[in-house]
């Protein structure tokens, strides 16, 4: 489901498919596995190929934010569609997750 590219201390991960409660555990586990590499400070999630997200996605993003925040790192997303943007805005994710336009 995930596709990764490393650029210095940044890992770009592309999420594809649907991010719902069913898919969340797998995506979470895959993200946490790559994040075991402590030299990663920035996690960039490319949402271009993500066809659906509901509030289960908020939980996954919040959780990864906390994990990176503990090591002084940060998390941001790119290729967010208007639907995901509304979920970001209402949930306050917008305040803690950077958006690369």
């Amino acid at each position: 489901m995930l596709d990764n590219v490393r650029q210095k201390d940044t890992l770009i991960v592309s999420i594809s498919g649907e991010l719902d409660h069913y898919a969340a555990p797998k995506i979470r586990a895959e993200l946490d596995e790559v994040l075991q590499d402590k030299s990663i400070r920035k996690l960039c999630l490319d949402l271009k190929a993500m066809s659906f997200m509901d509030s289960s996605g908020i939980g996954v993003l919040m959780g990864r934010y906390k994990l990176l925040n503990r090591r002084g790192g940060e998390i941001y997303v790119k290729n967010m569609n208007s639907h995901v943007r509304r979920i970001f805005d209402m949930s306050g994710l917008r305040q803690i997750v950077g958006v690369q336009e």
Partner: protein
Amino acid sequence: MENNAESTEKKESRSDNGSGALNDMTLLFPAKAENESFARVVVSAFLVRRNPTLEEVGDVKTAVSEAVTNAIVHGYRGASGDVTLYACVADDLFIVEVRDNGVGIADVEKAMKPFYTDKPDEERSGMGFTVMQTFMDEVSVESEVGVGTRVTMKKRLKYANGI
């Protein structure tokens, strides 16, 4: 809340007066996470014949996904049981209802508050009801502890010129 899901279904489907303006459907499926996407596809397929905008389809899918996930995660807590998805459309009014016969909600007002969740350890965000309210025009919740929960959501469609 009335716990007689069967008689309710019957009534709802019978409410069809054959005019062609109203159409409805009732879907029953087991409370398994793998069925969340199935429920989304079914509600989209039902709605799509009314010529909705892409945004409306996305809104409805997301709201239904939240309610179905809640029935599975909170209503049945991983135990087996059925989730009922009822949808109906008459002219420009689309109504969708998600029901479970699970544990129920003691304090609905508290449960609907943004960020409230009883499962923070599982990375639930507590934003399910808020997402439903954002994407639908109206959300109402009837629930009784030990009996179950019924979430009813309404949305006015921009173009009601489907079949």
